[in-house]
Each structure stands twice: as structure tokens, then as C-alpha cells.
């Protein structure tokens, strides 16, 4: 406003004028200091992003240098951690294979998605299209709450409800005896992991799907109804397809959450990097497993050993690469869908 004041003070005497112009100049100085401040903050945000990536890569470098591609092709992570922990300082163990963890992350995520996608889209359809007006806000509040429940609470509830349920209903002592050589069947399992993850990522998918469906122009719905499609067929054939880029974004975001979830999974999924064997039938789902993210939590106590430290950072790199790919993938999917629909 300083320059405004300047214009009103044309008639005042010279001294006053000089005073004014100093104030204006001070104002400009203050502006440019603040603007540089903003720029510095922005630059530091940019730097931190790059720094995180480089730092984690460097920290894990040795692992990839020693193991190469075998880091993702070999299994036995738990055993290797124990060996590395007990290895004498002059003969450190650098050989690690995270295949089991990779599969653990993959299986829990895929399983959770298979449950969460229909749950999420169904719920989003109810919120946007089927529920009466008074219910919509209420349902949305519940979804938001579900999205903001901390993962440790999910872990706690799953550990004390879902795990005992699995133990009581699916695990018999004969079964336990049969598999005792390979692993202990306790209820902490792939299945428990999938159950807790699916509830955790459903609200993410719901939230983005609701936004996407609400953004579908009303005229598409009218066009479809006027063509003799029922409300449900309109939803299935016109509304949901028109919202697919947003729904896809929600699913990808949910995938990222599932892959990155560490704590809840470390509480309920067993904590041992077994590779579930499809030949075991139902026991496949009862196998205790470990994921990349929960391995970092579980093994962090032995991080003082340099090679273990690097191995955990290598797990971090795998997570980083996956999640970065997912983020970029969202952008690409959104763009290609928009292009196909002729919006760009």
C-alpha cells in the first residue's frame, strides 16, 4: 500500500516526501527479502527430495555392488541377518537376498487390492449414487475417519481379533505339527496381513473414487437415462467408466499405501520371510511372511551392524523404486485416459 500513500502525498513538503520515499524503499527491501526467503524454502524442498533419493541409494550401494541382481532373486533374508549379526567384525557378511520380502510385499498388496477394489468402488457408488442425501455426509465422515485411524491401531485390533480368529478357525494342532519343520502356524500370517491391509486401503480408494464420480458431468447421466438405461446400468456403463482415471489413481495410491505399510504388517503377518507355497493349498494363506517395509521395522534393532544397515537401506531402495514408479504411472495413466477420451 506504500506506493498508494505516495500518490496521495504529492502536496506535502519535501522533507516529508523524502521520508515517504525511504519508506517505499524499505518496503521494497522487505518484499524482496521475503521473496528470497520463499525462494530459499522452495529450493530447500527441492533439495531435500533429491537428497533423500541419493542418500538412500548411497547407503545401500554396497549391497547392490556385492549382490547385484541376486538381491532380488535369492531368499533367506532372516537367516542372513542372523549370520551378519553374529559375524566377526573383520569378516562381515554382505550376502543378502530379499526375494522372500519382495514376494511378501507383492502377495499382501495384491490380496489386499483384490478385496479393497470391489469394496472401495462399491462404497463409492453407494455414497455418490445410491444413498439418500442425508446419508451421504455421514458415510463420508466414516470413510474419512477410517482413513485417519493410525496403523498401530489397525495392527492392535487385527492382532487381538483377526489373528486369534484365524488361529481358532483355520489352524488345528495336526496342521501345526505337519508344518512345524517349516514354520510355526500361529495365525500371524499372510491372511491376517491381507485382511488388515485391505481395510486400511479401502478408504483411500473410496475417497478418490467419490471425487472422481462426483466430477462426472451430470449430462452423461441424463443422456444415459434418456437412452433407456436403468440407473444401475448407467452407473456401470457410463458413470464409473467416465470416472476411471480418478478411480485408477485411487487404486494406485492404495497400492502405494499397501506396499509401504510397515507397522501393522509387522504386527500381524508373522515377521519371518517365508515364501508361501501354492502347493500347500489353504496353508498358503496361513504362512507367516515378512514384507519389505516391515522388515525394516523388525530388523532395525540390528542396524548398528554396517552390512545389516545397508541391507535395510536396500529394502528402502526397492520400496522407493516401486512407489516412485507407481506415482509416475498414475500420471501416465491419467494422461492416456484423458487423451483417449478426447479431453486433451
Amino acid at each position: 500500500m506504500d506506493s498508494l500513500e505516495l500518490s496521495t502525498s504529492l502536496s506535502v513538503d519535501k522533507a516529508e516526501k523524502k521520508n515517504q520515499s525511504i519508506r517505499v524503499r524499505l518496503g521494497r527491501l522487505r518484499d524482496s527479502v521475503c521473496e528470497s526467503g520463499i525462494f530459499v524454502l522452495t529450493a530447500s524442498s527441492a533439495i531435500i527430495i533429491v537428497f533423500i533419493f541419493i542418500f538412500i541409494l548411497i547407503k545401500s550401494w554396497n549391497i547392490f555392488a556385492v549382490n547385484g541382481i541376486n538381491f532380488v532373486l535369492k531368499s533367506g533374508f532372516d537367516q542372513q541377518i542372523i549370520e551378519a549379526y553374529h559375524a566377526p567384525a573383520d569378516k562381515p557378511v554382505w550376502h543378502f537376498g530379499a526375494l522372500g520380502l519382495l514376494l511378501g510385499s507383492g502377495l499382501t498388496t495384491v490380496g489386499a487390492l483384490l478385496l479393497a477394489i470391489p469394496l472401495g468402488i462399491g462404497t463409492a457408488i453407494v455414497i455418490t449414487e445410491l444413498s439418500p442425501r442425508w446419508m451421504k455426509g455421514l458415510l463420508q465422515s466414516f470413510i474419512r475417519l477410517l482413513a485417519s485411524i493410525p496403523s498401530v491401531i489397525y495392527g492392535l485390533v487385527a492382532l487381538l481379533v483377526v489373528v486369534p480368529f484365524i488361529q481358532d478357525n483355520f489352524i488345528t494342532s495336526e496342521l501345526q505339527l505337519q508344518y512345524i519343520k517349516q514354520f510355526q502356524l500361529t495365525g500371524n500370517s499372510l491372511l491376517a496381513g491381507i485382511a488388515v491391509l485391505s481395510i486400511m486401503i479401502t478408504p483411500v480408494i473410496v475417497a478418490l473414487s467419490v471425487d472422481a464420480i462426483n466430477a462426472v458431468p451430470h449430462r452423461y447421466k441424463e443422456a444415459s437415462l434418456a437412452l433407456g438405461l436403468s440407473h444401475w446400468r448407467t452407473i456401470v456403463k457410463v458413470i464409473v467408466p467416465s470416472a476411471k482415471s480418478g478411480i485408477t489413481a485411487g487404486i494406485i495410491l492404495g497400492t502405494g499405501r499397501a506396499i509401504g505399510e510397515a507397522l501393522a504388517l509387522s504386527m500381524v503377518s508373522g515377521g519371518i520371510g517365508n515364501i508361501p507355497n501354492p502347493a500347500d493349498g489353504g496353508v498358503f494363506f496361513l504362512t507367516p511372511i515378512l514384507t519389505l517395509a516391515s522388515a525394516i521395522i523388525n530388523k532395525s534393532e540390528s542396524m548398528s551392524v554396517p552390512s545389516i544397515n545397508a541391507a535395510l537401506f536396500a529394502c528402502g531402495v526397492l520400496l522407493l523404486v516401486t512407489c516412485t514408479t507407481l506415482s509416475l504411472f498414475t500420471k501416465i495413466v491419467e494422461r492416456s485416459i484423458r487423451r483417449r477420451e478426447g479431453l486433451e
Partner: protein
Amino acid sequence: MNKKKIRDLMGEVMSWLASSITIAACLGIIIYLFNMGHAQIDIGFLTNEPATTLETEKNGILTPLVGTLLLTFIGTLVAFPWALGTAIYLSEYAKRNNLTETFRLGIDVLSGVPTIVVAIFGLAVFSNPALGFLSSMVEGVQDVNRAFGRSFLVSGITMAVMILPFVIKTCEEALKSVPDTYREASLAMGASKWYTITKVILPTAKNGIITAVILGMGRIIGDTAIVWLTLGGTLRMTGVQPWWRPDNWLSTLKNTGSTLTSYIYFMSPAGEGHQNENAFGAAFVLIIIIILLNLLTDFFMGSKEIGK
């Protein structure tokens, strides 16, 4: 004809079923926590410090509660100006060019990075002896000194990094939702750009910015991975005692402690605490805090959008 009607009906029934499961999960968790946790809540629980199983005195959540507040405070204090500054730059100054777009993409990518990755990053960075003033120094073997890398300060700063991309994006959206006519009107009156930002744009976008901060706080309060790695595995404050005396505050901040989330973990069977009642008590308190924050966001944004 009738077949079609039945198919439609099936579809709708399935959708209702899906939403019932989702809502039942939400209600179920909250009711379960209430049932299991409410008996535990009393003045003693809120004002006693955590105890191990061996001790006879009553176990409480005073320091975890304080820990949660402390971390939230530090995390927000660091993240807010940082994120708001970046958001102002992006929405008001940045030109639309490849560099800016790459930066935006970087922010998106960072917001997709799992917190556990941010957590080990924080731990490793702050274990550097040069940053030892933020935590404490450990005597290493063979004269290799390193920093402990775990303290309230370290954890708070790491939390700030974790929420940074999210708060930047939400703040930027809030700033962008201010109509351009406001900017033009102010600039046309001869106001400087900075003046326009501080006196016109920020006040208009206030609610959106507050929402961003509250949602960020929610993330800090709910996070366990970062607490686990960068705040250490201690239930009580480990600085100079009594931790609450102002002259010991700095020491408290530079040392370790716990939060509600890590307390719940330690008390649960997973953390070998096996004091489920206490875990539930703390979980109940935590969920109340989360519900209150949710209501607060509703208040500031008119329950329009769900936290992404």
C-alpha cells in the same frame, strides 16, 4: 426384461453390501476400542508415567501423551513455514516450465514414499556426528564417534519431512482456489506483489491452509514408523529428570521418549508388553484425538473433501 431387473438389483445389493462392510469395519474398530479401553481411562492413567510390568505403581500414559504433543508441535513448526513458503512460490511466483513441472512431480513422488523409508533416512542422517547436537553422542568402538540419531528433535524434523509434500500440495490447492480477480484487484490498486500475498491471498486461503496443517498434524500423531526408528524404544523420557522442569527441557528434547502410538505398540503382544488393557486405553485416547481432529477439519473445510 425381468432378468435385467434382477441383475440390476443384484448390482445394487452388492454395492450396499460393500459399503456396509466398510462402515462396519470403521464402527467395529471404534466400538471395540471403546469397549476394551474406556474402563482404563481415569485421572491416574492420564497422569502417571508408563511403568514396566515389574513395577507395582499404576501404569499411565503421561509421557506418551506429552511425546505425541511434542512431536506434533515440532513437526508442524518445522513443516508449516517450509511448506507454506514452497506453496506460495509454486502458486504465485513459479513460471510454468519444465523445471517447475519436474519439481511438482518430485513432490508427488515424495508424497508417495512410504514413511518407513523416510524414517530410516532420518535415522541415518541424524546419526551423522555433525548433527549430534540434535540428539546425543555415542561412544563408538574404535574411536568412531557417531550421534545417537534418536531424539524428539530428530523425530520431529523427520516428521516434518514426511508431511512436507502433503502440506505443500494442500496449501498450494488452497492458494490456487483464490480467484485471480482478487490478485488483479489488489495489484491494480498499486499494492506490491508481496503485500497482495500477505494481505489478500493468504487471508482468503486461510481455511484451506489451516486444514492442510490439521491434516498434517493427524499424520504425525498417527505415525509409528518414524517414532519407532527415530525416537528410540524407551517408554519414559530419558533426558535429565524431572523432564518437565523448564531447565531440563532442552535435555528432554535431545533425548528419547515415546508417543501414544509407540506406547500402544510396546504394550501390545507385538511389542512384548502384554498389557493389552493399557494398549487399548491408549488406543482409545488416540482415536478420540483423531476424531476431534477430523471434526476440526470438517469445521474448517465444510466436510467437502476427504483427506487424500
